[in-house]
């Protein structure tokens, strides 16, 4: 280990320790009378204003993995990797129109998870269970990938072995257990401030050092010209244009179906906080676009990725290596800390969201129907520990590539809850049986297509990406389409047809315990006390 890396490590460690201290102290921040309920532990008391929500949701959606994987994609494929920008533009107007209703109806009924809503809306605990399991399955690999983000910075600092990751996650698990959602909310301030400083310095300083933007785009163009792959380049071509747009739209739809995004939205205190944030959150998209371009800067600077544990070059190391290459060592330490802390905020929120799903929609629904709020909070705290241990084990025991594959599947999988959750917020037309049939069909179609996609870069025959070649089903074209969008289309068609059939056959449908006005409720409006079970009584009074 050289002296240069020592400076980086010391700065990294100091910032990490400060942030961990904040995580523990966060339990005292906006201290409630009683921390023993999911509303307090899992949603921060549903009290966050515009600023806290901006940092929290921003820290939640733009993760460490994003910061290393998006530039790695641009480094490897060029323009196709830039889809992250349109994706994060498209998502906010959709939330503004649709997800805000979830806030209102959850405020009235005390829902903590999207599956809580589905349970009340469609009167089906089976459908709610499917939504909950989908959420947990999609979130787990996402948490594991946050570790990949930390690992990339550690590798670049020359740290070998797994113990630093285990320590980092143990600390994270401890303060999330104690402080709940307040911990990532408070840490998000530091994380985002560091990220903004690092990226602003990077985009002015690095092009200046490398000879200007024209030169950077020029060297990227030259690199892709030399490769035989048909899908790379500094522009899209007619084979991947459709895939680009579908991936951007599909990812946007998936983003706010993820349980951790819902957690961030439900924690805000009123509708205006959410609406203002949908106008202000795109500031992060700007940052993300600039981060994506770090991939081209790495090409221009001649960065070669570190060879990973599996003997293949690890593209995720290019951003840390680029920082190491151009910045003085103390600032590289700051930049690494920004990425490392960038992993902690989303990992905490994701584990809270997954734990809430388990507690509300599996434990309270099937194991202990009369669990008190305090018991729910305890179960959720323990479940969040289990989720994090699972994520660490996944990284230690499995090839990291496996988590990346799973995360890819996660996006396709979570999209299958769109008819129940997002369309359910707009209409009660669907039959619960139709939604279940659609979910099964969409899930099967999605996983089958993903299975059929090879990855020539690493020699895997299956689960090699999310771009499905239409030639695989006999269409004579080189065009590719995004698996998630096709699977969702299958899901919707089946859900519609099955709903029509079930309604014609007069099959019993679930009872909707929400009312139209619930979807427009705001801060200060009367609430139905304690979840869905007392709703009938609430209506009677």
């Amino acid at each position, binding site marked *: 280990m050289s002296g240069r890396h020592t400076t980086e490590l010391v700065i990294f460690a100091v910032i990490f320790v400060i942030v961990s201290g904040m995580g523990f102290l966060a339990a005292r921040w906006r201290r409630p009378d009683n921390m023993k309920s999911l509303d307090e532990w899992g949603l921060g008391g549903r009290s966050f204003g515009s600023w806290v929500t901006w940092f929290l949701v921003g820290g939640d959606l733009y993760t460490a993995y994003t910061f290393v994987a998006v530039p790695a994609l641009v480094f490897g494929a060029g323009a196709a990797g830039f889809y992250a*920008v349109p994706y994060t533009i498209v998502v906010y107007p959709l939330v503004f129109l649709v997800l805000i209703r979830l806030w209102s109806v959850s405020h009235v009924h005390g829902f903590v998870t999207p599956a809580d809503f589905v349970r009340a809306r469609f009167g089906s605990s089976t459908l709610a269970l499917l939504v909950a399991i989908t959420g947990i399955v999609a979130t787990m690999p996402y948490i594991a990938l946050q570790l990949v983000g930390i690992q990339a910075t550690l590798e670049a600092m020359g740290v070998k072995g797994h113990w630093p990751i285990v320590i980092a996650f143990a600390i994270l698990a401890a303060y999330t257990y104690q402080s709940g959602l307040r911990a990532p909310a408070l840490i998000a301030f530091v994380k985002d401030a560091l990220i903004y400083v690092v990226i602003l310095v990077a985009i002015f300083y690095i092009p200046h050092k490398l000879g200007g933007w024209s030169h950077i785009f020029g060297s990227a163009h030259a690199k892709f010209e030399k490769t035989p792959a048909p899908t790379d380049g500094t522009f899209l071509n007619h084979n991947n244009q459709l895939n680009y747009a579908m991936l*951007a739209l599909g990812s946007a739809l998936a983003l706010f179906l993820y349980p951790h995004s819902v957690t961030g939205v439900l924690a805000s205190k009123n509708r205006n906080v959410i609406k203002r944030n949908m106008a202000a959150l795109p500031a992060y998209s700007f940052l993300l676009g600039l981060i994506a371009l770090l991939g081209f800067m790495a090409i221009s600077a001649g960065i070669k990725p570190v060879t990973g544990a599996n003997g293949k070059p690890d593209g995720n190391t290019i951003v840390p290596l680029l920082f190491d290459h151009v910045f003085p060592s103390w600032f590289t330490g700051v930049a690494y800390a920004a990425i490392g802390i960038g992993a902690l905020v989303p990992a905490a929120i994701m584990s809270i969201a997954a734990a809430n799903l388990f507690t509300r929609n599996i434990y309270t629904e099937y194991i202990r129907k009369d669990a008190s709020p305090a018991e729910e909070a305890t179960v959720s705290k323990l479940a969040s520990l289990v989720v994090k241990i699972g994520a660490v084990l996944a990284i230690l025991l499995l090839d990291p590539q496996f988590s990346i594959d799973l995360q890819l599947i996660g996006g396709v999988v979570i999209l299958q809850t769109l008819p129940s959750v997002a369309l359910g917020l707009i209409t009660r037309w669907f039959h619960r049986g139709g939604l279940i049939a659609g979910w099964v069909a969409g899930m099967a179609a999605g996983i089958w297509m993903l299975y059929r996609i090879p990855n020539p870069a690493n020699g895997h025959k299956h689960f090699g990406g999310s771009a499905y070649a239409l030639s695989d089903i006999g269409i004579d074209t080189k065009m590719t389409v995004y698996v998630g969008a096709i699977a969702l289309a299958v899901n919707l068609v089946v859900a519609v047809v099955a709903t029509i059939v079930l309604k014609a056959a007069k099959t019993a449908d679930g009872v909707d315990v929400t009312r139209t006005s619930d979807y427009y409720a705001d801060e200060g409006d009367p609430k139905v006390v304690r979840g869905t079970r007392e709703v009938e009584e609430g209506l009677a009074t």
Partner: protein
Amino acid sequence: MADTEPGPRRSDRSPWNWLLILPVVVPLLTFLFNRDKPRLGGFPFFYWAQFAFILLGVGCTTLVYLMTRRPQDTIARDSGTASETED
């Protein structure tokens, strides 16, 4: 159903919401911006146009927010008449 409900009758319908279609659709029309020229500060059009779409998104969302705010936030008089014409 809505008529029999107690409490304030509300809706989030507004013709202004249609404006949000712009930032959802435009960034997906790749044929509009998948080109090199004109460049801006060394950035090919493909890249700077998509940065510009972020501003389009912020602009549209902010405008819709301001025009559809609820009465307790001192609603603008013209948005009140706008929602009447829609109903």
